């Protein structure tokens, strides 16, 4: 008797724990898919948006690269496709790229090796592993092997770096150690005179940001459009956005709250 009630009470406890998670509420859901680089920004924006408009709208976010987002939205599988690149002629017709922010990436070296600048060809040659020694790089103050640091596959910054600097056809040498955050890349480059890596704009402390194609990597140059290492983030819709998606995109583009979030790691519009 006692044993049976013990089991029953155990089942009741488990059931109570399982039900503790709130059931999904019925409301408008904006579905999104696409760029892994845009995802962290959009996730932060969506959380804020839901907090400001409780119970009205929900979000469902899937990742998988800009092309996937663009294809998904073109086929009506999602409300919004997230893209971290400009529109291309090969994209399906009838899409609207709603630009929401920019992303800038700096190539960095140790302060012991203040390179005067790198061209795109040089960056490509170094990061793909063709140029292995600093003595082959004009202006280098150190000698010996070039220690490349990259990011783990899941990094949006790595994705952006590849898209902007390597032109998407090349990839970073497979023998480069992959760090899991901007901070760890900064730390590795800072403590290794022979190192080179890439980070987002706000991780430049203690390292040297290398001018790219003759333009210094600063927030001002990025905002003015002179610095080439930037790319736009867009929320792509099929035709002009309508309903809940329109309200969300409008909020992202114009509200102060959204701008504050964008300002944390990205470059706001205009």
């Amino acid at each position: 008797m006692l044993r049976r009630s013990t089991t029953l009470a155990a089942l009741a406890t488990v059931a109570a724990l399982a039900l503790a998670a709130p059931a999904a509420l019925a409301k408008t859901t904006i579905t999104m898919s696409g760029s892994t680089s845009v995802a962290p920004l959009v996730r932060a924006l969506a959380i804020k948006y839901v907090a400001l408009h409780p119970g009205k709208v929900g979000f469902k976010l899937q990742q998988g690269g800009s092309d996937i987002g663009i294809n998904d939205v073109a086929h009506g599988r999602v409300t919004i496709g997230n893209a971290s690149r400009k529109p291309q002629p090969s994209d399906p017709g009838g899409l609207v790229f709603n630009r929401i922010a920019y992303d800038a990436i700096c190539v960095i070296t140790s302060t012991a090796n203040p390179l005067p600048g790198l061209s795109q060809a040089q960056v490509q040659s170094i990061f793909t592993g063709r140029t292995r020694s600093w003595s082959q790089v004009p202006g280098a103050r150190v000698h010996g092997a070039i220690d490349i640091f990259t990011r783990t596959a899941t990094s949006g910054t790595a994705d952006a770096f590849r898209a902007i600097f390597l032109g998407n056809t090349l990839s970073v040498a497979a023998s480069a150690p992959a760090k899991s955050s901007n901070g760890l890349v900064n730390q590795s480059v800072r403590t290794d005179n022979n190192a080179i890596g890439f980070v987002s704009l706000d991780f430049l402390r203690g390292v040297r940001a290398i001018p790219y194609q003759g333009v210094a990597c600063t927030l001002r140059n990025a905002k003015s459009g002179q610095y080439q290492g930037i790319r736009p983030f867009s929320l792509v819709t099929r035709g002009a956005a309508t309903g809940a998606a329109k309200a969300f995109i409008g909020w992202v583009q114009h509200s102060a709250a959204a701008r504050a979030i964008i300002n944390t790691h990205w470059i706001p519009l205009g």
Partner: protein
Amino acid sequence: MPEAALAARLRPARRWSRPERAELWLGALAVALLALIAGMVVFVFRQAWPSFSGNGLSWFLSGGNANTQLADIYHSPADPSHYLYALRAFPILYGTALSTGLAVAIALPFSVLCALFMVEFAPPGIARLMTPTVRFLAAVPSVVYGLIGILVLAPWINTHLVSESFKLDVKPIVPIGGGGLLLATLILTVMIAPIMIAINADALQNVPRSWLEGSAALGVNRWRTMWRIGVRTARPAIAAGVVLATARALGEAIMLAMVSGSFIFSPNPLDGLNFLLEPVQPLAATIVVNSEGLTVKPFGQTLYAFAAVLLVSSMMLSITGWVVRRPLRRQGVR
């Protein structure tokens, strides 16, 4: 005694505080906990299954570059029927075994000798100071060790121990920097040794005094007495300490992610001493480094597969510890 007070004394205890009820609730909580753990194991294995079934037994073998394999899985097409799972995880398993095994192998003799000193040979003042120090060291969060490793030790190793020519030679295959097997093993050893020392010292203290005195009475010197009677008797506890320390080393993620070289690789013993400078990436570290990508389904399932292997290893570890301790216990304390 006034009537009311007496009546209150004699009133039966309230329903919820009756002993049999307490028993019921405690039992229910225990069963619920077991059910939750079982549920978690089932969940992890269900999530992990596509990764195992997509690769078959070759999941456990080596081949190709596991770093690029993981990247390819992460960049799988969004269509579930085209998910990629191809992975040869041997370098990760080997790296786990190597860093854990080496750390335990170094920490074991060191911790036994250290505990012997603390219990038997140290002057009372030093012993009084050492015991709380060891306890404190055993409780230091691993991320602190990781920070010291990456801020101080890794740059030092990179400038003083890494040979430039070796670095250039292997550059196209594997990056050599400060972090690697040497640093990972070193910090792991520092991390797990205090636990083993504390457990060993407790066990040595619990060796019946009469046994040691009996040995001393026969004219055996102190060292021999401690070694042949003390350590011998404490063997089950030493084995328990090894199991606990191995479990901690196995599950260590953050620290290893910081200092092990950030590159999945199987260090090659044929490289001589440079073997120690080559990077590794143990299971738990691989999970934590890649956790950003959990939302990509096939990638998340691959991470769950690592978790499943970790679960099975710790289970086997517990069983091994139990099997080893059983025959030892017949002639030892505890």
